[in-house]
């Protein structure tokens, strides 16, 4: 019959003091990872690489030959 009295107060405050810094840290890490490594930078790089070698006229002619346009038919017709 001599158990120590358990903590009765400040339980929410203790939980917040513990979990909030962790939550903020994890969110910031996730945001930085998303920005730098997984999504934005690779996507920017993909677009840059694509347009480095992009010849618009060549692509247009290829599309025209495939017959998808209605205003310009393939050169054969």
């Amino acid at each position, binding site marked *: *019959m001599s158990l120590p009295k358990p903590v009765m107060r400040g339980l929410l405050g203790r939980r917040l003091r513990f979990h909030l810094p962790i939550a903020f840290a994890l969110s910031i890490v996730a945001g930085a990872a998303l920005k730098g490594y997984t999504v934005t930078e690779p*996507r920017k790089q*993909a*677009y840059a690489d*694509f347009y480095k070698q992009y010849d618009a006229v060549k*692509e247009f002619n*290829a*599309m025209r030959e*495939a*017959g*998808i346009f209605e205003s310009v038919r393939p050169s054969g017709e």
Partner: protein
Amino acid sequence: MMLGLTAGRFGTRFLGRRVMALVTPSSATMASHGHGHADVSEIADMSKPMYCDRMDTPLPDRAYKDELNAADKTLKEKEKGPWNQLTKEEKIALYRLMFRKTYPEMKQKTDEWKTVMGGIFIFLGLTGLLVWWQSIYVYPAQPRTFDSEWQAKQIQRMLDMRVNPVEGLASKWDYEKGQWK
């Protein structure tokens, strides 16, 4: 919680009467009416404070035992005095008058999850059979756009149009070799 009430407190007697009323013809139901009267006294009066064993409610609305016999009453009188004069057994007896289960008893794990998962899978299975039957006997004919030839021509047209050439569909096609990368 209602489920806990019917299962735990009134249990088989209550359910048994219901099942009997459904299954047996009316004359037998009349005969069992005497049995039904005995049941009525068991049903809790929900307009009064009720006892509950809940982990989030340490002090229920009423004590567990409210009909105290003479021994319990003398114990309750002794409780009004200094508590260090109570023996260990008396303290436990007082606890058991107030509460039905201790916290560890409440926290005891049951096998209820097996019943729940079993029921879920049974109903998922039945639903699956129903959906299968439906797909054969109810669905109308598939549109022609679902045929594999149509789908192939569709993808070819998307490649010709250079759909999503940077990161998407057309970027995965090798235009020189005429094949997927």
